C-alpha cells in the first residue's frame, strides 16, 4: 500500500514538471504505531523494576509499621521467630553472609584459576573441551545442586569431620555447593576479561624475559582487574540470592541466639557445621505452605525480600561502577 502510494505520488510529480518534487518526510501511521508498541515493549522491563520496588517497599512498610514489629528490633534483635513475634533479621542475614562467604571462598580462587588456565595456558583443543563442560555445569538447575548438597556433600563432610560434629543440615555443605554453582560464572566472566587484554602486553612481557606465569599474574591479571572484580561482585550477588541449595541443605529454621553475647561466644554465629536458615531459604519455606494474605508472615517475607533486593542492587551497581571506573582502554 505504502509503496504504491510512494510510486504514484512520484509519478504525479514527474508528470507535472512545474511542481517541485515533495521531498518532505512523510508521516506514516503504521510506522508510528510500530514504534510506539516497541517503546511499550521496552517499557515493560522498566515497569518490572518499578513493580518490584513498589511491591517490596509497600509490603515491607506494611510489615514494619505493624504494632508487633519495631524497626530497631528488626535490625538489632538476634532472634527471628515469627511464632513469638520476634523479628530480628540478624540470624537470617548472618546465614546468608555465611553461605555466600563459604561459596565465594570456593568459587573465587577456583574460578579465577580456571580463567587463567583457559585464557593463558590451554591449547585451542583443550579449551574446546573444557569450556563447554563448564557451561554444562552452569546450565544445571539449582534444585539439582540442592539435591547434590544434601545427598553427597553433607555425607562427605560428615565422613571427614565426624557425624557428631556435622549436622544433617549445615551451612558448610550449602556454601560449598553454592561455590561450585558459581564457579562457571566467575570463570567465564574473568576469562572474558583476561582475553580482552591485548596481545601486545603479553608480547612485551615475554620480550623482557618474563615467564608465562609472571606474564599471566603480573601483567595480564592486573590489566583485567576491573572485569575480574565485576565477576567477583556478580558472583557474590548470585550467592546471596541463591535459594534452592540453601532451602534444601542449609536448614529449616533460623539459627537464633538469645542475645548478642550468646551469638559471639566462641564465634557461635560462624559455626559452619550447624544448621541455619538464610533469607532466601526462609522466604521459600514460609511461602511454600498456603500462606494467607495480610498475615504477619506474608508481610515479613516481603521485608526480607526487600533487604535482599537492596543488597543485590548495591552489589550490581558497585560492579558496574568498578567496570566503568577501572576499565583500561587499549
Amino acid at each position, binding site marked *: 500500500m*505504502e509503496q504504491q502510494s510512494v510510486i504514484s505520488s512520484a509519478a504525479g510529480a514527474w508528470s507535472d514538471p512545474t511542481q517541485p518534487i515533495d521531498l518532505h518526510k512523510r508521516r*506514516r501511521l*503504521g*510506522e508510528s504505531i510500530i514504534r510506539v508498541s*516497541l517503546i*511499550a*515493549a*521496552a517499557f*515493560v*522491563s*522498566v515497569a*518490572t*523494576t518499578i513493580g*518490584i520496588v513498589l*511491591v517490596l517497599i509497600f*509490603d515491607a512498610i506494611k510489615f514494619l509499621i505493624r504494632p508487633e514489629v519495631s524497626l530497631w528490633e528488626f535490625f538489632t534483635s538476634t532472634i527471628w521467630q515469627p511464632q513469638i513475634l520476634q523479628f530480628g533479621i540478624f540470624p537470617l542475614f548472618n546465614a546468608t553472609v555465611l553461605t555466600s562467604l563459604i561459596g565465594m571462598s570456593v568459587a573465587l*580462587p577456583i574460578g579465577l*584459576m*580456571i580463567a*587463567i*588456565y583457559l585464557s*593463558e*595456558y*590451554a591449547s585451542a583443543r583443550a579449551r574446546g573441551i573444557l569450556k563447554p*563442560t563448564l557451561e554444562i*555445569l552452569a*546450565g*544445571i*538447575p*539449582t*534444585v*539439582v*545442586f540442592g*539435591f*547434590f548438597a544434601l*545427598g553427597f556433600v553433607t555425607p562427605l563432610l560428615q565422613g571427614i569431620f565426624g557425624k557428631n560434629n556435622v549436622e544433617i543440615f549445615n551451612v558448610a555443605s550449602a556454601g560449598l555447593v553454592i561455590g561450585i554453582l558459581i*564457579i562457571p560464572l566467575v570463570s567465564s566472566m574473568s576469562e572474558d576479561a583476561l582475553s580482552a587484554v591485548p596481545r601486545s602486553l603479553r608480547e612485551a612481557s615475554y620480550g623482557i*624475559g618474563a*615467564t608465562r*606465569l*609472571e606474564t599471566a599474574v603480573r601483567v595480564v591479571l592486573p590489566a583485567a582487574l576491573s572485569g575480574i572484580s565485576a565477576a567477583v561482585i*556478580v558472583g557474590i550477588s548470585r550467592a546471596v540470592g*541463591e*535459594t*534452592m541449595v540453601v*532451602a*534444601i541443605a542449609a536448614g529449616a529454621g533460623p539459627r537464633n541466639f538469645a542475645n548478642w553475647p550468646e551469638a559471639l561466644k566462641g564465634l557461635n554465629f560462624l559455626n559452619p557445621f550447624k544448621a541455619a536458615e538464610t533469607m*532466601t531459604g526462609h*522466604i521459600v519455606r514460609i*511461602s*511454600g505452605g*498456603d500462606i494467607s*494474605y495480610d498475615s504477619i508472615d506474608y508481610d515479613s517475607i516481603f521485608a526480607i*525480600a526487600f533487604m*535482599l*533486593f537492596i543488597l*543485590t542492587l548495591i*552489589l550490581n*551497581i558497585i560492579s*558496574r561502577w568498578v567496570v566503568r571506573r577501572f576499565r583500561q582502554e587499549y
Partner: protein
Amino acid sequence: MAVNNKRPNGSFPEGDEFDRFVRRRQRVGKTWHGLFFAATLVGIIALAALLIDVVDDTFGYVAIQSNIPETTLVMEYNKVRMLNAPRTLASEDDQLLAQNIGARPTAIGFFGYRFYQKNAESLTLLSVDGVQPDEQTVESGEYLLARPLFVYTSDAIIAEKNQVAAFLFYYLNNVNQQIRDIGYFPVSEDTLTQAQDAWAEATGLTASTVENLYPVTGDVQAVGSSTVAPITQQMADEFARTEGQNVTLTVNSIGTDAGIRAFCLDREGDILDASRAMGAVDTDACAAKGRQPLEFHIANDGIPVVVSAENDFLTAVTTDQLKQIFTTADNWSDVDPSWPDRPILHFIPSGDSGTLDFFVANVFGTTLEEQDPADLIAMLSANISSGRLRALEADIPLANRTPEDLVALIRAEVVKPQGVGSWTLFESIFKRQEIAAEVAAIPGAELKFYSWLNWNFLTSPQSTDPYKAGINVAIWGSLWITIIAFLFAVPIGVGAAIYLQEYSTGKSRFDQIVETNINNLAGVPSIIYGMLGLAVFVRILAPITSGAIFGYGDPSTTNGRTILSGGLTLGVLILPLVIINAREAIRAVPQALREASFGLGATRWQTIWNHVLPNAVPGILTGVILAVSRAFGETAPLIVVGVATFIVVQPDSPFSKFTSMTAQIYQWTSRPQAEFRHLAAAGIIALLVLLLALNATAIILRNRYARREY
C-alpha cells in the same frame, strides 16, 4: 637491575647461580601451571560427581515384601482347584496311584518317575506339548515337567569336615548308578564331570589322593528339598555300606526355600538339597554369612503324566489340555470333541507333596499374568471383603475389566507389595552380599534390581507410595508454564531489543533508563521475581489469573495460584535475558544491509522486518531457547508463587493449579525417606534430559544457520 629487585646486591646472576635461578623460575611456573589445570579439573570433577550422584540414586536394589506372595497366591489357588475337581483321588502313595490309573481306561494322573518305571507295562507315558520325557529332554529342560536337582555345600565346610568331602566325592562318582532306581533321571557325563572338577578344586584333592581323607567319622547333616533327600539318603546308605566308613547322615526335609534360608542365614547343615538353582541373591546372602555356595548338579527330575495302557485315545496332551483335564473338564469330550464322552478320573499326589507343587507351578504358571480372567476374578473375590468387592463391581463390573486391569487390581488389593528397603547403585554393586543377607532375614521379602526412572514414573501422578509416585503431572505443569513464559517474554523481549538496537539513540533519558534497568534486572535474584509474581499476579490480578472473570473454575475455591501466574512470573524473569540475547543477535547484522535497504527507499520498519530480522532470527532463536531452558529449570519463584503441594490431575487450562518438575524434585528431596530421594533422582534425570533436548535444539539451530560471513 629492575629484572630482579629481590637480589640484595642488585646484580644479575651468573654461572651456576644463573642456572639455578632459571630452573627455579621454571619450577614455579610448572607448579602453577599444574595448579591452574587442577582447578579446572575440580570444576569438571564436581560436575561428574553431581551426575554420578544422581545416577547412583536412580538405580539400585529394592526389597519388596508382600501381604501374600504372588506365587503362593497363584499356586494355592490352582492346587485347591485340582484337589477339589470331581472324581479326584489324592494320595501320598505313588504305587496306589499307579495301580489305580493302570486299572482304569479313563483315568489320568502323575507321580514320581520311579513308579512309572515299576508299572511301565500297565501305563502309557504321555508326551506333553509333543515332548516325551527321557534323559535328553529332561536335562535340556525341553520337557515341560523337568527340573534340575542340586546339592550345595561350601568351601569352608569341605575344608573343615573330612567326612563331608569324602561323602560328596563318593556321591558324585556313584550317583548315576543309583539314580534310576531312586526314580530320577541321570545327568550327562559332562555335567557330572563339571561337578567333580568343582569338588577337586575346592578340596585340592584328586581321585587318586582322596584316600588321604580316610578314615572318616562323624555326622553329615543335610537340609532342604524333600525331592532331593531320597537321593542323598540313598547315597549315604551306599557310602556307609560299600566304603565301610562310620558316617551317619541326618536329613531335615523342610523344602528348598526354607533349606536355603537355614543353610545360608542360620548356617545349619553341611549339605543343602535343592530342587532349583540358587539365584544370585541367594548366593550373595550365603556368601555374606561366610558360606560361599559350591554347586553340584547331581540329577534331573521329570514328572511323567500317564494314562492306563488300556486307554486307546490318548498319547499326547498340550499344556492347555492339562489345565482343563485337571480342573474344569468333566468328560474327556469337554477337552477335545474327538475323545470319548466319558468322565475323567484324576489320580494325583496329595496337597503336601512337592510333586503336586511342581506340577502346578509348571502347568499353571506362577505369575498372575499367566492366569485366565475367570481365575483372576475368582482369586480376587476370594481374598477381599464383600464390601470392597461390591465397591469394585459398582465401579466397573469385574467381568468387564481387562486382564491387565484385574492383575493390577489383585496386586493392589491382595498381594499388596510393600517396599521395605532400598539401596543406591553403588551400594547394590559393592555391598551386594550384605544387602542380600539383610533382606533374606526379612520373611517374605524379595530383593530386586529396580530403576526408579521407569515408564510408570513418567506416566503416573504424585502418590504417597514412592513405588507408585510419578512425575507426569509435574511434566505437564512445567510445559504449560514454560510455554506461557515463552509467549509472554518473546514478543515483548524481541520488541524491546528491536527498539533498543534500531530506534533508540541511547541519548534520551528514557533510553538510558531502559538500558540501565535491563542490566539491573538481569542481576536480581530469581526469588524476588517470585515475590513480584505473588503480589501482582497471584494477589492483585487474581480475578484474571484465576480465570474467574472468564467464567473458569469455582469462584469460592479458586485463587491466583495458577499456571498463568506461574508462567507470567517466569516470563518476567526471563525477559531481560531474551532482550540481551536478541539485542546481541540484531547487533550482529551488518550495517551495510540496513543502509542498502534505506537507500532503496524502504522505511525503518520495512528494513527491520525484511532485512534485519530475517538475518537475526537464528541468533534470536538460540537466545530464546537458552532463556526458555532457564525458565524450565527455575524452582524458587514457582514455590513462592504457590505450586500445589499435592495434585494428581493433569492441568487442562492456564487456570489450573500446578506443580513443576523442579518443585516436585524439591518436595521429594525434602522428604527424609530414602525412597523419595530415589524419586527425586529419577525426576532430575528426566529434567536434565528435557533440558538437554532444549539446548541441543539451540545448538543445532546455531549450526544450521551458522553465522554468515559478511
